[in-house]
C-alpha cells in the first residue's frame, strides 16, 4: 500500500450523482461569478446608488461563494492537500464575508424599506396636489365665468336685456337645459313666470308666493336644490319617461331706490324677491357641483344690483321726460301770458292816448267857457262838466298807473328829498278844500323825523294826497289830523297784515303816517273791499256818488312797491276812520340841497373856455371871488393846448353850435383814460333848450349850467361838483 497523502473522498464515488454535483457546482460558480459582474455593470450604468460598499461586500460574498463552489469541483477527484487548503481558506473567507454581509443587511433592509415608504408617501402627495390643482383650476374657471356673466349683465341698463342675458349666459356656461325667472306680481301675492330660456313668450304661469318650497328658497341666500316636481320647476308637461335633471333655485333680491340710504348698505330686509330656477339637462348623470352653486349665487346677486340700476335709470329718465314736458308747457304758457300783456299794454297805450285827447279838449274848452259871459244856470252846468271831466281825467291816469304798476313797469325814482316839505305841500293843497267844507286840518310831524330822506317823492306825495284827500272828501264836519312819525319796531310787528315782514336796516327806516278823520266811517265788513279795484261805492257812502274808484287800490300798490303797507280802521258808520300806512324810506346821508356849502375853494385849478371876452372875464371874476385859481382861454384849440391834469374843473362855453365844447370833451376823454384824472367838464350855455342840454350830457359832460350864473349858483355848482363828481343828479 501506498501511504500517500491523498485524501480519499468520503463516500464511494457514485458516478452519476457525482456527475450531477459536479455540473451543479460548476453552474453555481458560474452564476455566482456572473451576478457581481451584472451588478457592477448595472450599478455603473445607474447614476444613483447609495450603497456601493454594500455592493462590494455582497460581490465579495458572492465571489467567494462561487470560488468555494468552484474549488469544490476539484474535490470530486483525487486532489492534493493544496486544494484542500485553498478550499478551506476560501470557505473561511466566505464564512467571514457572509456573516459580515448578514450583519450589514440588518441595517440596510430597514433603510431600503423606508425608502419604499417614502416613495409611496410622495406618490400620495403628488396625487393630492394634482387633485388640488384640478380644484383650483375649476374655481378659476368659475371665476372667469362669473366675471364674464357679470360683464354681460352689467353692460346694459335695460332691464329686459339684463334678465335675458343672465339666463342665456348661465344656460351657456353651465350647459343648462332650462332657466326660468319668476317675478313677483304687483300685488306681491304671486310669482309670475316672466322669462325662460327656451320658451320665447311664456304664457303667464303664476304660482302663489306662499309655497313652502318658495319660502325655503327665499329664506336663504344660497342656491337651494329643489325637487323637479315642484310647481316652479315644472315648466313643460312631463313627457314619458325622461328623468328630469336636478333643479336648483336661488332668490334674486329686487332692490328699490329707497333701499339705498346714504351711509347705509341696502338692507336685505326687502321683501321683494324674484326666483331663478335652473335645470340641468335631463337624462344626464350630471349633478350640481359646489362651484356651480356658488356661481349661481354670485350671479343672482349681480343681477339684483344690475336690475336696481336699471330701475333707477328708468325712474330718472321718466322724471326727466316729465320735466321736459312741463317745461315746454310752462314756456308756452309764459309766452301766451307775455303776448297777452303786450296786447293789453298796447291797448292801454292807445286807449290812453285816445282818451286823453278828447279829455284835454273837453277840459280846456270848458275852462275857457267858464271865462265867458254865462247865466247862472249855464255857469252851474259848465262847472259840473268841468268837475266831471277832471274826475274822468284822473281816472284815466289812475288806470294807466295801475296797469303799469301791475306789470311792474313802474320803477321807483329814488332820490333824496325833503320830507317835511312834502307834507307841507300836501297840507297846502288840501287846506283850501278843507276850509271850504269848514273842516280843520292839522299836521303833526314827530320831532325825530329826519328831514332829508331817500325815496320816490312823487309816489309818496300821491299816496298821502290820496289818503288825506279821501279823508277830506268823506268828512262833512269835524276835522282831519295827519300824524307823521318814525315807526317803532313793536308797531311794525303789529301791522295788521299777513305777509308784511318789515326789516329795518341801518340805512332805512319806516315812516308811519296816520290820517284820522271824523267822517262817515266805514262798516267793518266793508273794510277788506276798500282796497279792491272799483269797489262798489254804493255800500260805502249812500250820498256821495263818486266812489273811491281806484285811488286806494293804487295807493296800496304804490306802497307795496315802496315796501310799505296800508290799513284802515273804523269803528263803524258815522264814527270816522283812521287810515295808517307804513313806508320804507332811506335815510339821506347828505341832504340834496347841501346846507354846508363850501364857501371857498382855495387853490382849486379851473380852466375857463369862452369865446366871448366879456363872459370870460365875468366867469373868471366869479371863480376868483370864490378863491379859485383861474386860467382863461378863448378857443378850444387853446384849451386843449393848455389843459393838464392839474386843472380840476373846466367850464366850457359851448357856443352857437356847441362844436367847440363837444370837441374838447371828446379829446379830453381820449387823452385821459382814467376818469379821476380827467378834469370835470361843465358846459356853460345861454341856451335853455333841452336839445343843447341833452347833447352836452350825451357827449359826456359832467354837467350843464345856464348863463348868466349867479355867485350863489356858482358856489353850489362847485360844491356839488367836488362832492359828487358830477352835476348830473341835481337840477341846474
Amino acid at each position, binding site marked *: 500500500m501506498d501511504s500517500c497523502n491523498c485524501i480519499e473522498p468520503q463516500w464511494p464515488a457514485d458516478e452519476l450523482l457525482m456527475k450531477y454535483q459536479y455540473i451543479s457546482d460548476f453552474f453555481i460558480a458560474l452564476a455566482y461569478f456572473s451576478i457581481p459582474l451584472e451588478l457592477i455593470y448595472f450599478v455603473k450604468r445607474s447614476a444613483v446608488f447609495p450603497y456601493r460598499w454594500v455592493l462590494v461586500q455582497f460581490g465579495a460574498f458572492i465571489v467567494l461563494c462561487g470560488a468555494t463552489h468552484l474549488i469544490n469541483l476539484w474535490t470530486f477527484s483525487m486532489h492534493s492537500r493544496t486544494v484542500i487548503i485553498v478550499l478551506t481558506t476560501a470557505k473561511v473567507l466566505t464564512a467571514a464575508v457572509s456573516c459580515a454581509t448578514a450583519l450589514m443587511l440588518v441595517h440596510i433592509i430597514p433603510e431600503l424599506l423606508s425608502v419604499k415608504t417614502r416613495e409611496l408617501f410622495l406618490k400620495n402627495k403628488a396625487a393630492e396636489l394634482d387633485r388640488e390643482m384640478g380644484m383650483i383650476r375649476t374655481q378659476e374657471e368659475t371665476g372667469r365665468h362669473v366675471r364674464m356673466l357679470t360683464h354681460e349683465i352689467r353692460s346694459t341698463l335695460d332691464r329686459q336685456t339684463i334678465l335675458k342675458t343672465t339666463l342665456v349666459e348661465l344656460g351657456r356656461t353651465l350647459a343648462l337645459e332650462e332657466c326660468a325667472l319668476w317675478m313677483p306680481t304687483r300685488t306681491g301675492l304671486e310669482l309670475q313666470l316672466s322669462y325662460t330660456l327656451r320658451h320665447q313668450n311664456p304664457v303667464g304661469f303664476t304660482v302663489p308666493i306662499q309655497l313652502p318650497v318658495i319660502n325655503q328658497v327665499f329664506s336663504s341666500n344660497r342656491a337651494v336644490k329643489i325637487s323637479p316636481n315642484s310647481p316652479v320647476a315644472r315648466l313643460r308637461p312631463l313627457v314619458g319617461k325622461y328623468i328630469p335633471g336636478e333643479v336648483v333655485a336661488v332668490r334674486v333680491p329686487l332692490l328699490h331706490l329707497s333701499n339705498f340710504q346714504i351711509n347705509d348698505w341696502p338692507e336685505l330686509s326687502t321683501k321683494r324677491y324674484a326666483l331663478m330656477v335652473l335645470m340641468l339637462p335631463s337624462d344626464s348623470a350630471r349633478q350640481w357641483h359646489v362651484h356651480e352653486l356658488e356661481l349661481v349665487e354670485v350671479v343672482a346677486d349681480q343681477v339684483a344690483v344690475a336690475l336696481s340700476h336699471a330701475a333707477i335709470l328708468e325712474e330718472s329718465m321718466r322724471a326727466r321726460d316729465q320735466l321736459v314736458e312741463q317745461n315746454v308747457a310752462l314756456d308756452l304758457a309764459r309766452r301766451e301770458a307775455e303776448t297777452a300783456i303786450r296786447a293789453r299794454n298796447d291797448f292801454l297805450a292807445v286807449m290812453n292816448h285816445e282818451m286823453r285827447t278828447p279829455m284835454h279838449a273837453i277840459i280846456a274848452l270848458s275852462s275857457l267857457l267858464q271865462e265867458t259871459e254865462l247865466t247862472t244856470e249855464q255857469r252851474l252846468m259848465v262847472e259840473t262838466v268841468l268837475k266831471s271831466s277832471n274826475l274822468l281825467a284822473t281816472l284815466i291816469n289812475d288806470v294807466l298807473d295801475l296797469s303799469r304798476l301791475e306789470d311792474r313797469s313802474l320803477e321807483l325814482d329814488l332820490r333824496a328829498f325833503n320830507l317835511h316839505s312834502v307834507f307841507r305841500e300836501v297840507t297846502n293843497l288840501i287846506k283850501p278844500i278843507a276850509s271850504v267844507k269848514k273842516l280843520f286840518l292839522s299836521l303833526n310831524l314827530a320831532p325825530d323825523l329826519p328831514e332829508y330822506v331817500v325815496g320816490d317823492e312823487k309816489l309818496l306825495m300821491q299816496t298821502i294826497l290820496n289818503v288825506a284827500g279821501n279823508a277830506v272828501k268823506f268828512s262833512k264836519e269835524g276835522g282831519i289830523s295827519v300824524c307823521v312819525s318814525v315807526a317803532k319796531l313793536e308797531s311794525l310787528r303789529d301791522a295788521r297784515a299777513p305777509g308784511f315782514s318789515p326789516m329795518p336796516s341801518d340805512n332805512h327806516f319806516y315812516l308811519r303816517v296816520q290820517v284820522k278823520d271824523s267822517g262817515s266811517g266805514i262798516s267793518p265788513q266793508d273794510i277788506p273791499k276798500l282796497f279792491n279795484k272799483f269797489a262798489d261805492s254804493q255800500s260805502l257812502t249812500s250820498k256821495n256818488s263818486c266812489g273811491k274808484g281806484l285811488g286806494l287800490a293804487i295807493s296800496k300798490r304804490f306802497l307795496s312797491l315802496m315796501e310799505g303797507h296800508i290799513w284802515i280802521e273804523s269803528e263803524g258808520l258815522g264814527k270816522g276812520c283812521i287810515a295808517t300806512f307804513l313806508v320804507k324810506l332811506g335815510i339821506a346821508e347828505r341832504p340834496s340841497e347841501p346846507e354846508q356849502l363850501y364857501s371857498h375853494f382855495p387853490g382849486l385849478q379851473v380852466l375857463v373856455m369862452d369865446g*366871448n*371876452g*366879456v363872459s370870460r*372875464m*365875468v*366867469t373868471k371874476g*366869479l371863480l*376868483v371871488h370864490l378863491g379859485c385859481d383861474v386860467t382863461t382861454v378863448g378857443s378850444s384849440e387853446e384849451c386843449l393846448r393848455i389843459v393838464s391834469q392839474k386843472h380840476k374843473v373846466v367850464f366850457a*362855453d359851448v357856443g352857437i353850435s356847441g362844436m367847440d365844447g363837444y370837441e374838447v370833451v371828446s379829446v379830453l376823454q381820449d387823452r385821459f383814460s382814467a376818469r379821476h384824472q380827467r378834469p370835470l367838464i361843465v358846459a356853460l350855455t345861454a341856451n335853455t333848450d333841452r336839445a343843447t342840454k341833452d347833447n352836452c350830457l350825451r357827449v359826456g359832460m359832467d354837467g350843464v349850467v345856464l348863463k348868466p350864473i349867479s355867485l350863489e349858483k356858482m358856489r353850489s355848482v362847485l360844491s356839488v361838483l367836488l362832492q359828487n363828481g358830477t352835476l348830473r343828479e341835481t337840477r341846474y
Partner: protein
Amino acid sequence: MDLTQMQRRLVDYTSSLFREGYLDDQFTQLQQLQDESNPDFVFEVVTLFFEDSQRLINELGEALDQQNVDFKKVDAHVHQLKGSSSSIGAQRVKNVCVIFRNYCEERNTERCMRCLQQLKHENSLVKTKLETLFRLQQQILTAGGSIPMWSE
C-alpha cells in the same frame, strides 16, 4: 355935497337904472365879486364890454352893408353881443339882441338894420349911464367914503 348925500345919490341913481331896465340882477352879481383883492373888477369888465360891443356893432354894420348879407355871420356877432351884454347885466341891450336874432333867422335885412340902429342907441345909452355911475362912485371914494352895497 357931503358923503352921505353922495351915497344917497348913488343909491338912488343905481336903483333908477335897475328900475328902468338898463341893468339887471347880473350887474349886482358883478358888484358882489368886487372886493379888496379885486377893487376895479366891475370897471374892468364894463370897459371890456364896451370895447367889445363897439367892435361888434362896427362889424355888424359892415356885414349888413353887403350886397349878399351873410346872415350866419350876422347871427354869430349878435350872439356874441348877446352873451357879453347878459354877462354884465345890460338888459336892454340883451333884449334887442334877442329880437335881432329872430330877424336874422327870418333873413329880414331891413328889420336887422333897424335892430342895429336900436342896438347902437341902447349901447350908447347904457354906456353913458354906467359912466355916470362910475363917476359917482369915484367921487365917493375920493371923498373917503365907501360904496354902499346896493341890495334889494
